[in-house]
């Protein structure tokens, strides 16, 4: 197993601001957060997207982005063979180039966890979605069992979904308590705990105000990471949504001293998109987040485009899609 990022230590205090005591208290806190002006936020994100990242900066960004990829397959048609292929791709994204770093993790459904663990041998993280992913429409007991099952199978990261129905009807306490419960279900027998990523499914929350509130709610409940999307709902990760979440983790650290990671997932397919996100990480949250422990990309096809661009940077010419592995 890899050493876990420091935030996963089980002693992290949940509710560091003591605002989750009652439904009313939690609501007052979340609704007291500064609003997000949609036009202004999108304008700022578009402005950051015009940064021109070239030569050495681009090479740095590409390698960092590769190291941040959670290489994902979440299909009904997934098989052990498919997951094995994904696992070897995760370890050696570019078999022709030993300088190419491995990705951060593979991300699969719970029943594929043993195959992912076998394929990667603990050399990259294995993330499992859980809690009745992607809709989350199941009983609390099933969601917790789903989580325990994935952890027992060897997943060291759990990607849970929040109850968007409860969030949108203002039952924040319920959402909060479920995250706390899932976090407890991430515990292993030896007292350590799998890393918890909380998926907000921002495409179903619709407003940036909701994205900011859901981010804080998840962080107050003890999330190690907040993640945009399941990838099953459009729109998934967009630059402004990621930016609003990065503002939230930045402000959360200022308020509590605790760092939380961010994972945009779904819809990031090109190197250009990935680099834009990294610029936002750098300038909004700050350089401390420029690390796979604190920022991830949930993606599948992105990796191949990063590899093609990496080829281009090292050889000076573009190779075709036949020169990267399909999986």
């Amino acid at each position, binding site marked *: 197993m890899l050493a876990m990022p420091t935030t996963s230590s089980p002693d992290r205090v949940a509710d560091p601001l003591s605002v989750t005591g009652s439904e009313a208290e939690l609501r007052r806190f979340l609704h007291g957060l500064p*609003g997000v002006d949609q036009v202004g*936020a999108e304008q700022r994100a578009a402005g950051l997207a015009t940064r021109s990242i070239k030569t*050495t900066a681009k090479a740095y960004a590409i390698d*960092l982005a590769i190291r941040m990829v959670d290489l994902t397959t979440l299909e009904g048609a997934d098989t052990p063979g498919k997951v094995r292929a994904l696992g070897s791709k995760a370890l050696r994204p570019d078999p022709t180039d030993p300088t190419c770093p491995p990705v951060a993790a593979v991300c699969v459904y719970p029943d594929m966890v043993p195959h992912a663990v076998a394929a990667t041998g603990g050399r990259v993280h294995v993330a499992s979605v859980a809690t009745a992913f992607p809709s989350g429409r199941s009983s609390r007991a099933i969601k917790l069992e789903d989580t325990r099952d994935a952890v027992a199978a060897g997943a060291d990261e759990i990607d849970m979904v929040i109850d968007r129905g409860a969030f949108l009807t203002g039952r924040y306490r319920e959402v909060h308590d479920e995250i706390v419960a899932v976090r407890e279900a991430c515990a292993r027998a030896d007292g350590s705990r799998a890393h918890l990523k909380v998926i907000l499914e921002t495409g179903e929350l619709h407003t940036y105000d909701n994205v900011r509130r859901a981010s804080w709610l998840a962080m107050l409940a003890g999330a190690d990471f907040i993640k945009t999307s399941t990838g099953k709902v459009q729109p998934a990760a967009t630059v402004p949504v990621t930016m609003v979440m990065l503002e939230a983790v930045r402000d959360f650290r200022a308020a509590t001293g605790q760092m939380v990671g961010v994972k945009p997932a779904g819809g990031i397919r090109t190197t250009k998109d990935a680099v834009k996100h990294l610029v936002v990480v*750098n300038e909004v949250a*700050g350089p401390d987040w420029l690390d796979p422990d604190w920022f991830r990309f949930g993606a599948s096809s992105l990796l191949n485009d990063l590899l093609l661009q990496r080829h281009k940077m090292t050889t000076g010419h573009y190779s075709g899609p036949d020169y990267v592995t399909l999986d």
Partner: protein
Amino acid sequence: MSTPDASPFEYAPAPESRAVVSLRPSYGLFVGGEFVEGRGEPFKTVSPATEEVLAELVEANGADVDDAVAAARKAHTRTWSRMSGAERGKYLFRIARIIQERSREIAVLETLDNGKPIKESRDVDVPTAAAHFFYYAGWADKLEYAVPGAGTPRSLGVAGQVIPWNFPFLMLAWKIAPALAAGNTVVLKPAETTPLSALLFAEICQQADLPPGVVNIVTGAGATGRALVSHDDVDKVAFTGSTDVGRAIARAVAGTDKRLTLELGGKAANIVYDDAPLDQAVEGVVNGIFFNQGHVCCAGSRLLVQESVAEEVLDRLKRRMTTLRLGDPLDKNTDVGAINSSAQLARIRELADAGEAEGAERWSAPCELPEKGFWFAPTVFTGVSQAHRIAREEIFGPVLSVLTFRTPAEAVEKANNTPYGLSAGVWSDKGSRALWTAQRLRAGVVWTNTFNKFDPASPFGGYKESGYGREGGRHGLEAYLKGADQ
């Protein structure tokens, strides 16, 4: 230059190529559709980022201005005022399209001569200039609808226009597009530190086959400007620049038949209420004062922040300011470019020092200033009171004065407590409060939850010492039509 927090993600230099611009060693004047030798003293224009001499120019003397006005008069009488509006519109559309086609060249030249970041000249100045020509091209054949009740509108004649150095090409568009659409001809004097884009515009006029004399460009400093605005055969004077020069022009024009519009200085307040969307408000404050190095007449140079959020807003503002990238204006990642001239830099330094001497607390974003050229780090003053010079005088640089207020009434009172009245900003998530405030602000433009937004369809201009007359929109045409504003 590098961001101060040593980030491992160092943006490599990404300079826009200068190759697209072909500078001539020397330029003359543009009179009667041709480039001619001027008869005054030669002067040089430098790149404020490097102090490199870009080209030699010539000051137009009285005789040169006579020639330019005569050429404009002839073009007005014989060609331009007789042409149908639809035909004039065609020329303006053609100019607008050429501006778009040559946009990169104009942007690079503007950045070289002015010192502003390429991303601003590329994304704001040049596209907005083209938009002004497109907008007024559409008005050229619809003038009877521009001034309801004024009958068949007629042009004024020859317009003498004097523009500043902060947005050389955009101000040229603001002045020339409505004048030409309304059937006037123009003699335009660009600022002496930024004449090059106006001379490139002269080439564009040639390329568009604009009839000779419709647009004339005379370069030079104050003496040339005085000769132009006090010329007997000029029917209309339009000036954008400092309030002092504006006063002198108003005196020179007084007692004549000349029509006058003045767009002068400002000391805009950006009011941030405690319920504002804070991250966007901070963006707006940054944009309001550091856009174009603060060389903006409508810059939000006074931040009025509600006391209950003052500390939080300042923290966010300072953190944001540390990510501003100051340096080579041609680098596509530069946010803050060079101060336009050594004279302007001296004025900014003087006022900033006065701020410190009067007891305000000074904080600058940590950044390395290049050795050559004219530079000033983005600076914020806290603990500023209404009596301080930095709260009253226009600094016209990247210097923000922060004041606090407790109630909406106090915010409005402080915002209006200035001899200027060009623009203002209001930040609140509560619509009724924003509207209540906007109604009470004595400023020509009030932005709500945004700042420095310009659109050719929207009139722009000031109250009090910020000048009179409006530019942009239908109102901008009235300044160039007979019977319209009297």
